[in-house]
Each structure stands twice: as C-alpha cells, then as structure tokens.
C-alpha cells in the first residue's frame, strides 16, 4: 500500500527569526512542506532555500487565511492526501503532527482541530487575557455555527482529501478560523479535537491575537 502523502502548509509573514527553527524541525520529521510567503518584506526565500520545501510567494500581503488557501491549492495540485496547517512562529510542535493526523489516517474523521485546552498541563501557561478572549470566541462561534470546540482559534489543524476539497477560505485574514467551522457544518464533515501544546514564547505572545484583533475578526465574520 502506498503511504498517504502528508503536506504541511506553513504560512509565513515576516517571521524570519523563528522560521529557520520551525522549518528544520519539520524537515527532521520528513514531512512534505509547503511554505507560503504572504508578501513578507523580509527575505523569506533565503531561509526557504536551505530546506527541501515547496515555496510559494504572494506578491502582496493578503492575510493568513489567503495564504493557507494558496498552500492548500498547491497541496491539492501535488496530490496531497492530508494537509496540516502549521504556524511558522514556532508555537506548534512538529512532534505532534503525527498525533493530529492519526485520526485521519484511521478514517475516524475528515478534519482534526488542535486544542490547547484538552490537556491540563499545557493550559497552565496560557496568558489569562488570552484565555478570556478564546472562551468568548468559542461561544460566538457556537452561536454562529453550532459547533462548540474547546479551542476556538487554534491554527494547528489537519484535513483529509475530502475536507481539502470542500474547505475554501474566502476570509483573507484571521476570520478563516471561524469560517472553517461554518464550512465543516455546511459540508457535514466529521471533526475531532486532539490535544496539542502551544508554546508561548515572548515572540508569539507579542504576535498573537489580542482583544482588539478579536473584535476585528468578529466584524469580519458578520459583514462577510
């Protein structure tokens, strides 16, 4: 039997300082990597060139949702069986990709969401303000889409072929994390949550979603 082709899609925007580490971790685990440079002003390709990755570059910065979509289009073109969404900023652990893809390989569901709240030990380190924002986002998503996940905005996900075909982001920016739920619901995809650890470095804390940004996401959703 042929091994399923797993592609890890990594959208990146000006994250040069951590990208090197993220890519070398992923390469060490032998995954196919699709790196999507979302119009960075930094020279991402100098780092990308050092690794065996598929490299795509947006001429302009159009947003993480759009970059993921470009990566998924490329993955589909390359014949991917499974696509993993993976953040470039080093908050996800390449070791956990096997865990998040496992339910797909066993055909237990079509899409797997990573959750930082299913594991008690990892949730200890989540900043308090972030916890509140994420709790609010959960219930807003539930209100809109009828899907209550334990972690509303986790960028660590895995999709099988069926999900890749049916999920297409129109929300260019961060609204895609909620949009994906509406698509899951609409296409009746089977979903599961798997505990993952999120590493909060000073870097990702600075870069992550803050309260004001969540308000933006909320309005992106209601005005789409």
């Amino acid at each position, binding site marked *: 039997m042929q091994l399923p082709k797993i592609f890890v899609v990594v959208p990146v925007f000006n994250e040069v300082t951590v990208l090197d580490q993220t890519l070398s971790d992923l390469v060490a685990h032998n995954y196919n990597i699709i790196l999507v440079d979302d*119009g960075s002003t930094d020279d991402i390709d100098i780092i990308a*060139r050092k690794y065996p*990755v598929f490299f*795509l*570059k947006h001429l302009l910065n159009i947003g993480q949702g*759009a970059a993921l979509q*470009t990566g998924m289009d*490329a993955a589909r073109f390359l014949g991917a069986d499974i696509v993993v969404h993976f953040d470039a900023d080093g908050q996800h652990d390449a070791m956990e990709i096997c865990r998040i893809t496992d339910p797909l390989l066993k055909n237990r569901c079509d899409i797997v969401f990573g959750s930082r709240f299913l594991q008690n030990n990892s949730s200890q380190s989540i900043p308090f303000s972030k916890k509140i924002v994420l709790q609010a986002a959960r219930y807003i998503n539930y209100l809109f889409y009828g899907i209550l996940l334990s972690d509303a905005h986790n960028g660590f996900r895995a999709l099988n072929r069926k999900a890749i075909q049916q999920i297409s982001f129109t929300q260019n920016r961060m609204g895609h994390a909620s949009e994906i739920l509406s698509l899951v619901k609409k296409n009746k995809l089977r979903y599961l949550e798997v505990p993952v650890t999120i590493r909060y470095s000073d870097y990702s804390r600075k870069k992550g979603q803050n309260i004001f940004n969540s308000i933006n996401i909320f309005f992106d959703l209601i005005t789409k």
Partner: protein
Amino acid sequence: MKGIQLILLLALLILFISYFRWFRNAAIDKVLIVLIFLAGVSFVLVPDWTTKIADVLGVGRGADLLMYLSIVSFTYIVLLLYSKIKKLENQLSDMVRRQALGGMQDFSKVKNDDQLK
C-alpha cells in the same frame, strides 16, 4: 407616524435589501445619481420646495429634510463603496494566489531559480 418617519424607514429598508440583493447592479446606482442630481438642482433653484415638501412630510424646516435625506444617501454610498472594495479585494487575492501557484518552486529538487512546471 409622521410622513418623514415612514420615508426614512422605507429608505432604510430599501438600503438594507438592496445591499444584500441588487448591489452589483450598476444601473440602479446611475438612476439614483440622476435622481439625486435632479432633486438637488430643483431644490437649489426653488428653495421653497424643500420647505413645502418638509411641511407635507411633517418635518419642521426644509433644511432638516435635506439633512435627513443626505444621511440616508451617504449611508448608501458608503455601503456601495464597501462592497466594491470587498469585491476588489477578492479579485486581488485571486490574482495573487494564481501568480503564487504559477511560480511555485521546489527547493528539494532545484538549487537555482528553475521553476516547477
């Protein structure tokens, strides 16, 4: 209910519905612009008309009537521009994506600038 209330409510309703339904129909925009222009011209030429119309509609002064109407029309214009911007944004991301996919490079195979076919 005063006449003006009814009209403003109706205008808001039309705004609301047209935003979701006929927004991309440029002909409606053109007709509206012509109507606004004609109304503007006649109100400038015969200012008393605004007062008369205002009287009929239950608004105190003609100037107040114009203000109410302009608020409604500005809202309409803002929504129109918003939808155009959204549309452009979608087209732009489509183009950027196509360009990116066309220029995909496979760094595991090539060490130079050769592009993947």
